[in-house]
């Protein structure tokens, strides 16, 4: 978990929409095998940063490296093929399609029907709901159930890196716990997880590694515990700002 050979590396990433830059130069490494959490206040650019990974937003400057392959300029489809899947913030199931059809679409890039069936079986073992509600329309599931089906769908490609954008958004505390447990489980079965979370404390508790984003820049990074116990992080979430000199600033990226 701690071997930080460059699995996913952000290198001077600057990105935004239209005129303004939301991400103003971010450098850090996501180590292979663990759960990495990006936290930060609203509008700090967390979601935008994730979108640069999946190819939904193209960085204006900088580069992203995934196991030595540059990602900037690749389409979401090409990035998927490299083994990176993203579950977006908003519910992204196709509501009019059945749960099973949705999950099968997760393997859209796989042509072999046998392989798809095998993976479906495997995914169903982790997510029993896929079998239980197989024929139901995805739109009829509760928010938490939809999240689980989205997770199931994203595993159909057997990705190396799973990118989750606020997976707990809009969920009640009980479902939230289930979703977090599932994320841990996905990690346990061999997926590296990179996630953005608004429920920072809970997310940090299960993260091996964490970075704090503020105003489009990296302000803190360390292990999940270090960031969680940092006295300044509370201030950040109460609307304050971290002072320039942070005691554990960015050990992973030499540039900062």
């Amino acid at each position, binding site marked *: 978990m701690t071997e930080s050979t460059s699995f996913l590396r952000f290198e001077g990433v600057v990105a935004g929409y239209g005129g303004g830059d939301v991400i103003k130069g971010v450098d850090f490494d996501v180590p292979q095998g663990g759960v990495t959490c990006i936290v930060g206040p609203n509008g700090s650019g967390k979601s935008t940063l994730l979108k640069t990974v999946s190819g939904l937003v193209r960085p204006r400057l900088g580069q992203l490296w995934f196991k030595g392959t540059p990602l900037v300029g690749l389409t*979401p489809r090409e990035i998927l093929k490299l083994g990176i899947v993203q579950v977006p913030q908003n519910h992204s199931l196709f509501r009019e*399609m059945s749960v099973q059809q949705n999950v099968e679409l997760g393997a859209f890039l796989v042509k072999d029907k046998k392989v798809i069936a095998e993976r479906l079986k495997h995914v169903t073992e982790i997510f029993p709901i896929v079998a239980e509600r197989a024929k139901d329309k995805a739109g009829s599931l509760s928010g938490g159930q939809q999240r689980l089906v989205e997770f199931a769908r994203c595993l159909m490609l057997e990705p190396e890196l799973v990118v989750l954008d606020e997976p707990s958004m809009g969920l009640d505390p009980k479902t939230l716990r289930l979703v977090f447990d599932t994320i841990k489980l996905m990690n346990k079965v061999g997926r590296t997880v990179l996630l953005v979370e608004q429920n920072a404390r809970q997310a940090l508790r299960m993260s091996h590694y964490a970075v704090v984003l503020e105003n489009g820049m990296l302000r803190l990074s360390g292990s999940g515990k270090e960031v969680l116990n940092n006295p300044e992080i509370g201030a950040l979430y109460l609307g304050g700002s971290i002072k320039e000199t942070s005691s554990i600033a960015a050990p992973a990226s030499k540039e900062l």
Partner: protein
Amino acid sequence: MLDGVLTGSVYALMATGLTLIFGVMNIINIAQGILVILGAYLSYTLSVHFGIDLFVGLIITIPTLFVVGVVVERLFMARLKGPERTSMSILVTYAISLIIEGSLNMIYSINVVQLKAWYVDKSFPIFGVYLPYIYLFGFILAVVLLTSLYIMLYRTRFGASIRASLADQVAAALVGINVARVSTICFGLGIAVTAAGGMVYGATNAFNASTSYDLISRLLTIIVLGGMGSLGGALLAAILMVTLGDVVAVVWSPIWSSPTFFFVLVIVLSLRPQGLFGKQSARVA
């Protein structure tokens, strides 16, 4: 009444193309009307100058219009981006419409023509009335094409990628669907159906390039009533429009057939702004 159901299916075919284009691409294709007429003229040329049967000619006209669709999409539609896409598309497709209309007027003159074949002239008795065979053949054609379209959409991998793009473009891209390619093919398909629609339309009506205005207003009304982007809605609304018009024409007066339909449209839209089968939040930018 009966011919209402029969022609309704042809309108459904043309409207399905329009609603498919809107649903996947958020593009309102004002040129759909003139493309139907283009399809009719292509059939006209093939039958008058080359002696090719109207139905056989579809083997040429359907792929031709598919290519027209693909070219228009690549040249113009793919360049429309951002939140103003839908409104920009109305202007761009209207411009395309005017160019095609002008060209058709120049090539074919403004005199109205009608497609000829034995099944246009000969009639068959059904429920005590005589209907030209073309109504029946056109109906069968529309049913066959619509069925194939539905099988393609609901039973194939490519169809799944279209439906996924219809529902949510970002989510579709994130499972690896090439939304740009799906859009291009959808635009091609949406236009290709006008070849068949145009042939049947041209065989059952006298037309010239200006007929497209009546057509596009009807087609737009159909997809608005059915719910923008809803395929089933387009089917039902098309049959409703034509049948309602015919019933009113028979029991009341032909003068009131169109107004009645628009009256129904206003009522439906005031109760269900998203149309009969539209999604709750209409995705119009």
